[in-house]
């Protein structure tokens, strides 16, 4: 049975300011959906709320994973339930190596716990080193990251493209059911976009549902979406097939504004 992630009539915001105004969207495992929309329309807000960012408030509506609400779950619980967010702006954490971080994350998501006997815990809560290293090496190869990055501090001094690739590496290692990629293409030159998209393409399949959030159409030249949604002022105002992305590219967001914007934003 394919899993389903359903956003149902979601109203949400921050500090009393409403940003999402009734979002509806259903994503199935194995599908690729694109979420497009002008800057400030609420795409990142939706991404953060799916992941459980503590700063945002949900006023009404629901987010359901296979029919169960996830709104009460902490971000780490959501991650363990199979939800992943590739950040628009990944943070750098000095002193924490990529390898160590990923070993902790993989172990947490896959539920490694220490073997216990009467004396207490023996061994560790982590995936065995050998197994982990093998997986990491393979995943790095898959998404095109030099093995030397394993020893570097997480995102510390990474270029924009390296940071985005690091997000895809995490996606590869954590094997979620649903991945939200927030502007994974932004700020990258065309070669970098292609490299990141190729990484994503190697990971898609019946086990993964992807929501590609993007401002531009160009990444969709490499990642073929099944469905395209357009967000405007906190709502999904249009949904359609891949042709919708091309239509948008052609006509621009002004067209959306004219159709759906009551108060025209600059």
């Amino acid at each position, binding site marked *: 049975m394919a899993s389903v992630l359903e956003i149902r009539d979601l109203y949400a915001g921050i500090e009393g300011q409403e940003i999402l105004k009734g979002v509806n969207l259903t994503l199935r495992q194995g599908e690729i959906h694109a979420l497009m929309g002008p800057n400030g329309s609420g795409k990142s807000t939706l991404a953060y709320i799916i992941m459980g960012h503590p700063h945002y408030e949900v006023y009404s509506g629901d987010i359901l994973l296979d029919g169960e609400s996830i709104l009460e779950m*902490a*971000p780490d619980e959501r*991650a363990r339930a199979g939800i992943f967010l590739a950040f628009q702006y990944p943070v750098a954490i*000095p*002193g924490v*190596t990529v*390898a*160590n971080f990923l070993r902790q*994350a993989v172990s947490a998501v896959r539920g490694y716990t220490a073997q216990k006997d009467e004396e207490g815990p023996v061994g560790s809560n982590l995936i065995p080193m050998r197994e982990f290293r093998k997986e990491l090496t393979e995943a790095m190869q898959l998404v095109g990251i030099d093995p030397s990055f394993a020893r570097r501090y997480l995102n510390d001094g990474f270029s924009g493209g390296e940071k985005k690739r690091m997000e895809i590496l995490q996606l590869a290692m*954590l094997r979620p059911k649903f991945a939200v990629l927030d502007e994974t293409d932004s700020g990258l030159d065309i070669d970098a976009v292609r490299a990141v998209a190729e990484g994503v393409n190697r990971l898609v399949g019946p086990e993964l549902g992807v929501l590609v959030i993007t401002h531009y159409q160009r990444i969709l030249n490499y990642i073929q979406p099944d469905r395209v949604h357009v967000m405007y002022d906190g709502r999904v105002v249009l949904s359609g097939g891949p042709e919708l992305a091309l239509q948008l590219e052609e006509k621009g967001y002004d067209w959306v504004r004219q159709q759906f914007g009551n108060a025209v934003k600059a």
Partner: protein
Amino acid sequence: MSVKTATTTQFSAEAVRALSELLDEPGWMLDLRLTAWRFFEEIPWPTGTEETWRRTSLRGFRLENYRPFVPDVLTEVEAEADLETIYREHLAELVSAGELVMDEGRAFYHRLDDTLAAKGVIFTDLHTAVREYPELVQRTFAQQVPLDANKFAALHYAFWRGGTFLYVPRNVEVTLPFQTLARLSQPGAGGFYHTIVITEEGASVTLMEDFFGGERGFHAGVVELYPGPNSRLRYTHVQNWEPTLWNFGTQRIRVPRDAEVVHLIASWGSKLSKVWVTLDLVEPGARGQLLGLYFTTDHQHIDHHTMQNHRAANCSSDLLYKGALKDTSRSVYQGYIKVWPGAQKTDAYQANRNLLLDGRARADSIPGLEIEADDVRCTHGATAGQIPEEYLFYLESRGLDRPTAERLIVAGFFQEVLERVDNADVRRKLETTIAERLDVDVADLGLEVDNNTDHNG
């Protein structure tokens, strides 16, 4: 534990004599102890108005509550058993050139690599050194940290017992580290470990010392480092005392021409700790790094007071102290850089960084600068802040629960200091102590990923 006479239960000149007799010392050492005792009596107790004591209170500390020394420590049999259970495990963590294990100041295990001994390296407990190498000891003992450096140093010199003596002759380079385990096993006793390290010209050595035990006790220690010209000396001091112990330390390093010293103090334990660390760069080309780590919990109070003295031209000093604070604990960092007249081309850096893991914890940093030369590069900075929410959310979004995420960030925060420890075994052992302090198995910190990268590919 039997207490034999009143003279051994109270701090007094009689107790000084009794201790010296117990240790069967030469007259000069007894004289030195008695002089120190007079200093101790003369120096007033800190009142809290002195600059160095303004933020660290001795309220609740009463010398009368402690025995100055323990006449009879563990029996041989107990010692043997202890060695098997505790010390072997500790010692095995670090492949070393020599090990020294002491309890209540008494050495009961000692090993020095034969080839190093043949080259003239001396690694022994300080009492043995007083007997066997009196000239070397007299040349160095109390020469860096004077008898009256402060009230606790004076008390230390009156009652010092146990400690490491390490001497490395000219041009001998020892690659493996030496290690000392110094314990206080008897509750309620005073401890007074003294460390001396001497490297002659062109020599190189690493010493790692672990201090632990000391339930309801107090410790007044002294460390004196004597690198020779163009030598390299690395010293790591791990303070892992019981959380009921009061700790006072005075450490001083004199760095001559072209010598290089890395001094690291990891303050994990004790109830309250006050340590003065002084780096004297006395000849051109001297270089020194002062590194510090601390992680305070509960009501712990950890105070480091450092001094970087640039007395000659073309010297560099680089200080980095990093601490994480939990609960209602508190840290004080007071640091001073002084560039003396004529000390041109000085490079002096000082940074104190604090990570507040609890809104109730408090970190005070008081940097100071005094520059009397004009061609110098000098920076200092202090920060205190909480873990950014965005770090935690990022790690949590990858499945890590909050305690794990915090631990990872704290371990990462300390990494900047560990990076400067060039001996991988010393670094790993420090990581083990960090894991202990964070209440996890070192394996669960996952730090060995980095160390093993080359083997597993």
